[in-house]
Each structure stands twice: as C-alpha cells, then as structure tokens.
C-alpha cells in the first residue's frame, strides 16, 4: 500500500505539468491586449486589472480600474517580455477578453500576431479580435468607460450584445480567425472599433464624470482582410450584407421608407442563410439563400393599414429588397477588395473539390471578382407588435 502511494506520488511529481503555482495576488490579470506597429517595432499594450479598484469590499481610491503596461520589441514576445521592466508582476493572459489590433499593424499583416497568441499556452482561444479603425490600439485600451469599469470588459460585452442585436458587427474569436487565415477559400473579416472624441480626454477620469462621455468607443464597419493584411473597410450597409450572407445575423433593425422622411421600422427576429455553389460552363456560380423573419415595430406612416394582409405583403417585399441591396453591396465591395470574406471558396472546395483544385490559385484574383452571385431571399412579417394600427390618427 505504502509502495503504491509512493509510486503515485512520484508520478504526480514527475509527470504532471502542474508546476506553475501562482497565487492570485501574484498575477497581473490581462483583460485586453493592444498591438500597434510603430517605427519598425511592435508596441504591445497590456490592459491589466487593478483588482482593489474593482472590488466592492475595499474603499475605492483614485486609481483607474485598470492600468496599461507597454512594451516595445521587434517580435511580439520581446515586446511582451519588455513589459516586465515596468510591471510589478508577471502578466497572466488566461482571462484575455479582447485583442485590439491597430490599423497600421493590421495593414502590415496579422500573421505574426495570431501566431504568437496561438502558441501561448496561457491564453485561451475564445477572446475576441477587433481592429482599431483609424486609431491606435493603445488609445482604444486607454479609454475610461461608463457602466462597466473595465474597458476591455465593456468592449467585449458590447461586441457580444451588438453581434446578437445589431447586424453590422461580428465577434470573431481567435480560433475562428485562425480557421479563416489558414483556409484558401475564405478571408478574415474583423469588426472595427472607432474612438469618438479625442483620446486625450478619454484617458482621463473626467470622461466618465459626464452624462455623455466626450470620448467613447463605437463598433463600426467590418475590416476585410486579404491574406493576413487589412485591405479595406466595409461600411454599415455592406457590413449588414456581410453578416446576413455569412449567417451571423441574429436580430437587427431594418428601416423601410414609406413616405417623405418617414420610415417603417422592421425588427428582424431571425435570419438564416445558406450558400450553395454551382459550376456552370467551367465558371463558378454562387446562390445565396436568405430566410428572414421579422416584426413591424414602428409605423411612422399613418396611411399604411397594417391590418390589411396586402400591406404586409408589400412591406415584406420592401424589406426583401433592402436585404437584397445590402447583400449585393457587400458582395460588390468584397469583389473590389478581392477579398472572399464570405467563404464562397471554402464552400466551393467542399461541394466541388475537383473544380476547386483547378481554380484555387486564381480564385482570389480572377474567379472571385467575377463570380456570379444569385440571391434567393424569403422574408416573412410575423407580427405587428401589441397593436395593429397606431391609435394616433
């Protein structure tokens, strides 16, 4: 018995990878990482939590809820390690929430960044990656945010909520990004984050002392990548189309013009899409089917009789047109950027592997920009809310 215990204890000591004992107060809990490319160096910013500022228990000081530690280096690892020259503890990336890539770094290529993070044993694969649109990642992470004290947390929550309820954003996690980057038939698309107002104000506590913070972040646009390099941005309309085609859309709002400066509000409650590929006369074709259900949530035009089924039919048609417009615009823009962010190529690879093998090398530059895309859109209005026509005459 003693012998068995001794053997199992030895196994525990020798065989497990459990040597990394670190107490909670020896950690710098990193919630957000920002990467910028600056003068031939990587500038890595770690946004770490000041736990004592977050806790309910202790008195709040005047320190910010989180602190930024920065390191500079030729490789990301070097930059990350350079942080220890400033930081009192070693960083712990296991709870990383959001990874912000500066626009300049994104245009340079994100392979190194993704590679470095994926290699790290501490970081998980489930944090979200975003691109700072026209800004430096560093500035995004320096923002004082209202409600949620931790900016990274605030950004991550906002991204998750808007992905579900607002069409033009997608929450891409590291593993999804790696999938996209490693496949030839689809390109990476990441949501962009923009800073409204001046970053200098956002950095100070005054920012959250106002009703409307002068400086705040906002998700806007989708960054289309070609290979690992940022090649262009999709505007809001195109972003809507993108999320709709790629089946990322859950719920959103669509506005249908119904009169002079008046719009009917449609809430999309569910939307699903399917991409089918065909090869016709040696040329690839793609059919995008979108099936959307929605409710009428705002009736701005009094002349519309929502109790009449034919009106509903009409609204359905108009909504369908709006969806179609978005989709066409998105595909158009992607073709311009020569970036198959929809993954049509991947679909083609699965459905027509022989054809794909012939065209895969020319797909991005020749086949995709000339791809014939047809749309089959179904739209159903299911409900008009708790009332039919407005009581207001």
């Amino acid at each position, binding site marked *: 018995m003693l012998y068995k*215990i001794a053997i*199992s204890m030895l*196994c*525990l*000591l020798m065989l*497990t990878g*459990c040597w*990394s*004992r*670190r*107490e*909670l*107060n020896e*950690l710098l*809990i990193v*919630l957000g990482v920002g990467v910028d490319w600056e003068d031939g160096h990587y500038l890595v910013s770690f946004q770490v*939590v000041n*736990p*004592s500022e*977050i*806790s*309910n*228990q*202790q008195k709040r000081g005047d320190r910010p809820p989180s602190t930024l530690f920065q390191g500079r280096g030729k490789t990301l690892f070097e930059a990350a390690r350079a942080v220890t020259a400033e930081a009192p503890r070693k960083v*712990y990336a*296991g*709870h990383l*929430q959001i990874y912000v890539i500066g626009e300049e770094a994104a245009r340079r290529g994100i392979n190194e960044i993704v590679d470095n993070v994926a290699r790290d044993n501490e970081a*998980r694969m489930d944090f979200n990656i975003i691109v700072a649109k026209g800004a430096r990642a560093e500035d995004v992470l320096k923002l004082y945010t209202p409600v949620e004290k*931790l900016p990274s*947390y605030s950004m991550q929550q906002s991204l998750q909520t808007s992905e579900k309820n607002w069409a033009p954003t997608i929450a891409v996690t590291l593993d999804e990004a790696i999938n996209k980057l490693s496949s030839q038939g689809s390109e990476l698309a990441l949501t962009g984050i923009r800073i409204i107002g001046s970053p200098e104000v956002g950095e100070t506590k005054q920012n959250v002392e106002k009703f409307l913070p002068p400086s705040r972040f906002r998700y806007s646009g989708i960054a289309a990548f070609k290979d690992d390099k940022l090649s262009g941005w999709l505007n809001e309309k195109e972003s809507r189309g993108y999320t709709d085609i790629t089946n990322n859309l859950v719920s959103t709002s669509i506005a249908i013009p119904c009169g002079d400066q008046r719009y009917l509000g449609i809430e999309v409650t569910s939307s699903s899409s399917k991409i089918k590929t065909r090869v016709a006369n040696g040329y690839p074709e793609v059919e995008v089917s979108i099936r959307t259900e929605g409710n009428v949530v705002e009736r701005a035009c009094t002349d519309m009789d929502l109790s009449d089924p034919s009106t509903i039919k009409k609204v359905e048609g108009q909504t369908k047109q709006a969806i179609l417009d978005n989709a066409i615009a998105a595909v158009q823009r992607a073709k311009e950027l020569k970036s198959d962010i929809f993954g049509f190529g991947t679909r083609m690879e699965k459905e027509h592997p022989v054809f794909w093998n012939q065209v895969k090398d020319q797909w991005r530059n020749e086949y995709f920009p000339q791809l014939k895309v047809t749309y089959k859109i179904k739209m159903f209005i299911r409900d008009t809310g708790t009332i039919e026509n407005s009581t207001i005459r």
Partner: protein
Amino acid sequence: MHQQQFTNRSSNNDNQMLPEYANIPIDPAVENNLLRLRRDMGGSDDLVMRKIHNEGMNMAAAAVVYIDGLSNAMAINQYIFDVLDYSLPRYGEDTSTLDTGALAKKLLNGMGPIRTVSDLGSLYQSLLSGEAIILLRGHQYAYCADIREWKGRDVTESTNQTSIRGPRESFTETLRTNTSLIRRKIKDPRLWLETVTIGHLTKTDVTLMYINGLAKPSVLQMVRDRLGKIKIDGILDSGYIEELIEDNKWSLFPTVFNTELPDNVASQLLEGRVAILVEGTPNVLIAPTQMVTFFQSTEDYYQRSFYASLLRILRFGSVFISLLFPSLYIAITTFHRDMLPASLLISLAAQREGVPFPAFFEALIMEITFEILREAGLRMPRAIGQAVSVVGTLVIGQAAVEAGIVSAAMVIVVSVTAISTFTLPAYSMSIPVRILRFAFMGVAASFGLFGIIMGFFVLMLHLCALRSFGEPFMSPLSPYMHTDMQDALFRLPRWLMFKRPDSSMGASSSRIRKN
C-alpha cells in the same frame, strides 16, 4: 433514585475468572470465608458482611455479604434476614447436616432467582456485580440473590443525535435498560441475546443482540469469535470493543456503526445486523455496517421519502464539500485560474491583495483555527461553550479579514466547509472527513487538481477495499447491489422497499407482505 431489577441473567463468565480465584472452593466454615473475603478485598468498607448466629453458638450459622451501593439494602434487611431468621433456628444445631441450602433457596425464591456458586471466582463475580451472597455453615456452595440496584441515569432524549420526527428516547448506561428498550420495539422470540463478560478487571457485560434467522450466521460467528479473542483488563466504553473488533484496524474510516438511538438499533436488527451492547455506555455498536449507513438518519425513515431522499443527496453533497472545498479552492486559485469566470477571478484577486500568505497556508490557518474553536467549544463548560465558540469564530474570522491576514473568500470557504461537516448524522464518519481534508489541502497545494483527483482515487480504492465483518463496506455502491440501492443514495417510498438488504439472510428477505 432509579431502580434496576435484574432477572434472568445468563452469562458464560466461567472463562473470564480472575485466575487466582477460579478454583478456590468455598469453605464450609462461614467465618473462614468471611475472613478470606475481607482479606481479599483489603478491608474495603463498602463490603458489608452480616452474620447470623444460632442461639448458643459461637460460630456463625449463616452470613450475608453484599457491596454497599450496588445492592438493595432494604431487600436484604427485610427479606433475606427475615427468611434466614425464620428458617435457621428451627433446625437448631443441625444446620450442617440438613439441606438448609435447598430450603433457603426455596424460600428465597420468593424474592427472585437464586444461583449457586461453588468457587470464589464466581462468588466475586456475583458479589461485585451487586448480588447478595448468602453463606451457610457446612455448605460448599454460596447462594447469590440478585438484588442489584444502583443509581443510574433515566432514559432521556438524545442530545447527540436529534431528530424532528420519530422516537426521542436514547440509550442509558445500564445494559439491561438498553436491552429492554430494544425488546420493547421488537416483540418476537427470535430476537436473541448472548452475553459475554469481557475485561479481566472490569468484567464488563457485553451483549449481542440479533434476530435469529435474519442475521447472517457467518457474521454472527465472526462477531462472537472476535469478542472471544479480546484479552484486555478493562472495557469502559463500546469504543474499546469497536477498535478491537474492526476488520481494518489502520483505516481512518469506522467500519462499525454506533448509535445511541434504540429505534436505529431496532431498524438495523430488522435488516439482519448484529447489535453489540456494552454495560456502562449508551453507545451501541452495530455490525456489519456500510458507508451509506453513516449517511442515513433514523428520521429518513419517518419523514416522507421525497424529503428523505433530498436530505440524503444533500448529505452526500455536503460531505464532498467538507472534504474537498478548501482543496478545490486552493487548487483552482493557484493552478487553474482559467476555470474561474473573469469577474470572479478579479473579485477573488481583489480580496487576496495584500494577503501575505499563499492560499494553502491561509486555508491551513483558518482550518486549524476552526478545529481549535470546535474542540474548545466541545470541552468548555457547557454554559459558556456555545457563546464563546460563536463569538470566537466571528471575531477571529472578521478580525483576520480586516487585519488582512486572510481573505474574505477563505473565511467563506472554511465556514461552508465547517457547516457541511455537521450535516452527517453519524459523528464518527465526520472525523475521517476532517482529517482527510487536510491531506487533500496538501495535495491540492502541491499538485493542483491532478493531486486532488489522484488523492480521490486512492481514497476510493481504500474505501472499496474495506470490509466490515467480511461484508464490503462500499456496498451497495461497490459492489453494486440493485435491491440495496433502494436505501442508499436516496430512499424509495416505504411501499417500494420490498427486500431486506443483501447483508441479511436471503431466506426471509421480504419486508413487505404482498396480499
């Protein structure tokens, strides 16, 4: 004063005699015996000897010997002397030739059974257990009248095993009271008793109770054999017996159940188990026993089965908590931080800011403090005990957190752990859990979750290897016994519990008659 009248004492005490007295015959001369008794007992003044002289005779015709405080002196005065006075003179000086013994015995039968002993060993056995010894001149026998009576505790409500519903009474220190409490619940001739005397000096009566036909003969024989093998000078509590008859003497886990509730013993007897009652203690041993028995409260059988099942699951859960919670906390916060949600991690980290000790030492400090408080609360005079322990816990917990020595989360962990220990109805099972908790904290601090899982494997292997009187300790979980699962992790409604447990005899295993 509580009166204990003993009747029908059956004892096979011949092999338990003090060797030096076993074969010494009783002298026909009463005086010689009395001298001998006085000398043997060093002139102890609770030894009362009263002589009866025949008229005109110097030598005593008879003597009554008893121990003051163990026998009913009133009975001796009123009855024995009356009878002796009445019967002796009538035969004048011929007492040595006549069978006065038989006559006296006949007369004395009016007040209870009379036993005849022929050697000093048996005489002492009877005398010191409170019987009155009647010596008659010219007889090689002594007559023992059972007039035992001493002060004992009343049958009161159990303070250690309380319940909301069900019988309140608990065992006392008197063996005969205890057997009667069980007899009153099982009025069947098949409820058998066997008494042995154990202890060279204490000569403690130990009684086996079982239902003939339900108890497995193999188990019964094993219990008899093990009791027979005990060679010890004294038995003061059933704990002595428990330690001496356990299968695995080095295990942390008790493999003999003990209880002070008669209804618990009765229910276990009905399941074919053997009860071991020891004179002088209210704790009755039950063998064989299983792990799940320690999770069963008698109340489980009196409340509705749904409630009982819920409580069972709760108890199993709380044992896991009290065994593993501190070690899981240590392992997760020091090795596997990834397993915590980010907001919880930050909150825990905030609490740990400024705490100077590693989580393991923090937990150790708090656990040891709690164990000290618990022990102090138990040993302190009852009047101040509870207040001091409650205040102590609060003050130490609160003050330690405010002083920044331990984190608030740790105080919660330790408190929950401590409270969980108390859900177990059997105190004896909470002791190994308390000890093993420290072991688990150690492996958690050195090896993290891997250590905990390995430790748990070792624990499970050990538990599954345990036997209680040859019966597997982890049954019905391992080996899996389908019918016994009716009353293991949960309790089925009474009308679904048809079968007696597997550990009882198969022959009459149906509990409920279906007709």
